[in-house]
């Protein structure tokens, strides 16, 4: 059983229990260590070989990983902490309060910076992994302040997420928003990295019992530190969103306005959380603009690419300033945090009723309000002189901006319309197609001579026909793909050739063909469903028309 003899793949792996014994850790500590260090099991190629001929389900880790953990200083911290807890429990049991106090003073604290630096050598690496971090922090920040998790962690999560949102607002980094039944998905682009996170709707959670909160808390501990460290680095805005100066200014503002509300610190935090305040910001450095203006003398193909890129950038710039100069007012039934974040990050101004939430910046009666967002079933007091005024109107379906349909996929007709719009119009004017936030609420538009808005509606109506035509064309194309276009002669040859495949190829081929067939079948099913639905709608409409006559 010499080590030299079995130089095979089996020596690369170690079972979880053996690894645990090697590290001399309890299972809980091992789990914690794995979470913090980002160690995960590996699936050996020849499981039976590694498992010494047994097929029992076992978790295997790479031996290199475990050796890597062996040198980890945080393991000692775990042990220290274990001893600390034991001493503390003993002191409590003996009611030695002096000892308790002394022990608490010397509570061992662990720092995870080095682990983060190790896992994410560059800032970009850290940004890439920010998806999970943000989702978890947003979830924890909505937890009740009493309960299973430490309150400090919840406060920290809240603070960090608010700061992050402020950063996104300041950097105009938000790109896509999607209101799903699970929560609100947002996609922001930071330093060219897409970051997607999901926020739950603002309701209290019913605590599931089948969830191990210790695991979640360990992850969250790591994530808070990662997110905290990600806040400050040199982002293009050149200034952290929440400098102490900004914090102070916000605080003084609050003091001046509503000193009766709550404790200063709390109200300042809430004020920040309301996201409506424009924080003091250092001027955007000119370097960014210069970088854009750079131009290289290029030949044909490059020039086209350059042109495309510039167009894209231009569209993005326009997109960023979508709501510039517009003033919104939220009714109280509208989710305030989410909408504030979205509208502010596209450059709009927000306010709401003072009694609803702290941080209202202007009143309902303010004459310069351009839009009012309403989500109420009843008729509001109608403003007859307004054109774009649709309270209580059934909204068109809300589509996911994350889906990019490939050839042969089913595309819902609404999306086809949007695509047609996008192609027909210049992209800057396409408000509804690019952002979903407009569609989500019934909107009362208190527009002050906002002429092009109406125009856009007209154009849209005109385009609808084009869209229909295009839709038909696409549908045809899809149907055509389905058709057997092989001619009879070649088809037979193909059948014969198919018979001559090797076994492995046959399986692969069958798999691929099955996948293709299923895809087509699913697309057809969706199309059929849609057709049936439209048919039902049409007949209903007809019946309605027929009745009054």
């Amino acid at each position: 059983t010499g080590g030299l003899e079995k130089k095979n793949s089996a020596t690369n792996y170690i079972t979880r229990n053996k690894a645990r014994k090697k590290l001399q850790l309890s299972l809980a500590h091992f789990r914690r260590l794995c979470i913090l260090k980002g160690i995960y099991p590996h699936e050996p190629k020849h499981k039976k070989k590694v498992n010494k001929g047994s097929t029992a389900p076992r978790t295997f880790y790479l031996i290199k990983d475990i050796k890597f953990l062996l040198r980890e200083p945080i393991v000692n911290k775990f042990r220290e902490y274990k001893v600390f807890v034991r001493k503390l429990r003993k002191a409590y049991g003996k009611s030695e309060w002096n000892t308790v106090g002394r022990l608490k003073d010397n509570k061992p604290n662990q720092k995870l910076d080095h682990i983060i630096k190790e896992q994410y050598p560059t800032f970009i690496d850290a940004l890439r992994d920010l998806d999970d971090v943000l989702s978890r922090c947003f979830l924890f920040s909505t937890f009740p302040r009493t309960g299973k998790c430490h309150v400090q962690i919840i406060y920290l999560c809240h603070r960090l997420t608010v700061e992050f949102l402020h950063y996104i607002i300041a950097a105009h980094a938000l790109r896509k928003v999607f209101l799903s039944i699970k929560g609100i998905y947002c996609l922001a682009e930071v330093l060219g990295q897409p970051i997607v996170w999901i926020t739950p709707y603002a309701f209290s959670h019913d605590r599931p019992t089948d969830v191990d909160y210790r695991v979640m808390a360990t992850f969250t501990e790591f994530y808070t530190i990662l997110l905290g460290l990600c806040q400050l680095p040199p982002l293009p805005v050149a200034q952290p969103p929440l400098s102490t100066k900004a914090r102070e200014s916000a605080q003084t503002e609050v003091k001046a306005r509503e000193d009766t509300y709550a404790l200063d610190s709390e109200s300042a935090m809430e004020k920040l959380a309301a996201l409506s305040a424009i924080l003091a910001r250092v001027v955007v450095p000119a370097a960014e603009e210069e970088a854009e203006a750079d131009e290289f003398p290029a030949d044909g193909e490059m020039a086209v690419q350059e042109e495309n890129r510039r167009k894209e950038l231009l569209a993005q710039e326009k997109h960023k300033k979508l709501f510039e100069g517009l003033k919104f007012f939220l009714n109280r039934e509208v989710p305030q945090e989410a909408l504030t974040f979205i509208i502010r990050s596209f450059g709009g101004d927000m306010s709401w009723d003072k009694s609803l939430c702290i941080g209202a910046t202007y009143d309902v009666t303010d004459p310069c309000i351009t839009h009012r967002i309403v989500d109420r079933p009843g008729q509001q007091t109608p403003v007859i002189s307004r054109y774009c005024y649709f309270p209580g109107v059934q909204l068109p379906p809300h589509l996911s901006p994350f889906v990019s349909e490939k050839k042969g996929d089913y595309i819902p007709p609404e999306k086809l319309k949007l695509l047609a719009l996008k192609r027909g119009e210049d992209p800057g004017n396409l408000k509804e197609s690019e952002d979903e936030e407009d569609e989500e609420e019934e909107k009362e538009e208190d527009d002050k001579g906002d002429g092009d808005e109406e125009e856009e509606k007209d154009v849209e109506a005109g385009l609808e026909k084009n869209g229909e035509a295009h839709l038909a064309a696409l549908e045809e194309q899809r149907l055509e793909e389905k058709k057997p276009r092989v001619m009879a002669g070649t088809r037979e040859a193909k059948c014969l050739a198919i018979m001559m495949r090797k076994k492995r190829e046959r399986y692969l081929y069958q798999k691929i063909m099955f996948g293709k067939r299923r895809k087509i079948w699913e697309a057809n099913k969706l199309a059929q469903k849609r057709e049936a639905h439209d048919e039902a709608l049409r007949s209903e409409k007809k019946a309605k028309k027929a009745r009054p006559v």
Partner: protein
Amino acid sequence: MAERRGVCLVVPEQGGRPAKRGLEFEPDYQLYASLQPFLLCDPASSLSDSEESVFSGLEDSGSDSSEDNNNEGEDEISCDKGHSRTEGQAQTGSPGLRTEMAKASSQDEYQEDSSDEEDIRNTVGNVPLEWYDDFPHVGYDLDGRRIYKPLRTRDELDQFLDKMDDPDYWRTVQDRMTGRDLRLTDEQVALVQRLQSGKFGDVRFSPYEPAVDFFSGDVMIHPVTNRPADKRSFIPSLVEKEKVSRMVHAIKMGWIQPRRPRDSTPSFYDLWAQEDPNAVLGRHRMHVPAPKLALPGHAESYNPPPEYLLSEEERLAWGQQEPGERKLNFLPQKFPSLRVVPAYSRFIQERFERCLDLYLCPRQRKMRVNVDPEDLIPKLPRPRDLQPFPTCQTLVYRGHSDLVRCLSVSPGGQWLVSGSDDGSVRLWEVATARCMKTVPVGGVVRSVAWNPNPTICLVAAALDDTVLLLNPALGDRLLVGSTDQLLDAFTPPEEPALQPAQWLEASEEERERGLRLRISHSKPVTQVTWHRHGDYLAVVLATAGHTQVLIHQLSRRRSQSPFRRSHGQVQCVAFHPNRPFLLVASQRNVRVYHLLRQELTKKLMPNCKWVSSMAVHPAGDNIICGSYDSKLVWFDLDLSTKPYKVLRHHKKALRAVAFHPRYPLFASSSDDGTVIVCHGMVYNDLLQNPLLVPVKVLKGHTPTRDLGVLDVAFHPTQPWIFSSGADGTIRLFT
């Protein structure tokens, strides 16, 4: 005192609380003093001082009553004292004195309070007076006479009149012990009123006097106690010393550590200030970053297009699926507006599952199969280039009424013989599909074989446990005649050897029908095949044991069993076309025997479950085997005993395989009703492997009773193929 106890005050109009308690609680001497005369001058009993002495005349009978009396006397005195003192107290106003006085007076009170005092006017004792409700009396006096209730003849009107007339009516109460009316005095009324309003019974008692501390806050010149200080206050404490020394020891030993200074570095700082662009991940290179979560599709929208919503059946199916199997882990729902969208109940679980995925799931880089399925189809030469091969059905030979098990083509290619389950052997003309002859044999014909020697016109047919040798008498007369001559030329040997089969001459009428010889065996015959020269005939019997294969010699009418041992159930045998080999296909393998050397030369392993048929390439170096597990196996004898290629073209069991004697073609027939013709080119260059290309799938037979095409044979000179099927037809494809 006794009288006071006995009186129960009932105030009729105000209906207040019983005054008895109040009286007991707060002794009011004045009241007591005032009550006494009132009791004494009770009109009914008309008691006087003297009478009181009569009451107290009890003194003779009991000693305690005398004490009582004494007490009463004392009481009087103390009462007086109290009066005087209270007056004095009122003058001095000293609180200390007052409490003292209160103490003293209370002492007095307890002295005169005795437990056995009772109302001695009525001697019934402490019994409920309701007991006397039905009697005219209420009790007995000291002399044992009845105390009668006063006459209550007054009706309500009288009472009313009394109420109107008598100004003291409101203060009149009834003494329940005696049943008489009492009139309360002013003092008594005042007392009752005070008690009713919750005040102290004593008029002079003020509950709101300023409190005076026992010890004043001022420093006095004299100490409270003059005790000298203890010795221990001068000596250092041993206990404390011990504690301190214990602490010192603990510090020395490192058990107690001084408070660590607070970490002054901020928890959040610019970690990536000095980024090392070349920094490799601290770990090995096999690290796989966690895959990102899948992005949401249209179905997850709060207001999805209607086609994404699940119908009722789909919803049910979704509910019945395992959570891991579901394509969507949520039910798509449509909400009219954002206001009514509820919280997602599985949000925390989903985040938790993500946690589990991150630290419990093995990560692997899976190569996505990005293969064009067209690339998986092998590039074969076009069938058109491999012509000629049979492409379409030209003739159907109808006549048999049951499935046609076997067929064989004459070496000239003009005639066709077929054996069927309907108990007949039919001979056909190939070119016209005309049935030339029908030979009824009366049994299932399992196998037919036309003698391959073109100079002999003879057909062997396997019927039950015999092999029939027929002369079909078709074609050249000369040929037919010479065949008959050949058969007749046999002269039986002197001493007939012991043979495993019997050779019998056909009877006259059988000869008429064409039968010439009959070789009868003990067991049913399953297959019959000729050697290429047409003299030897191999037969497969359906027995277990070593006599499964017999070889008959036609010219000498001899039979022999070549094997001494059996190697499993023999399925079929074949003679090698140009070498002295006999190929025996058993269930799982194919053995090649050298007939001259009488040894096993090769054992081929087709890797099939059950070999059904076998054919040898006319050049002799390649063999194909069909099997019931729908495989066709091609062996290259020069290459290996393992299959050169396994073709799985058919969907069902293979029944027959055949090589074309001239063209590079081979065919297989199967129970799925098809015949597949393949191009099987064998090159003379030994280094080049045979080229196998399927060229045509021939369909024509309709499968009946789960049987499709039972036999297949090529035309000896043309690229044509005959097939016989379970539908009772024979078909020719050209």
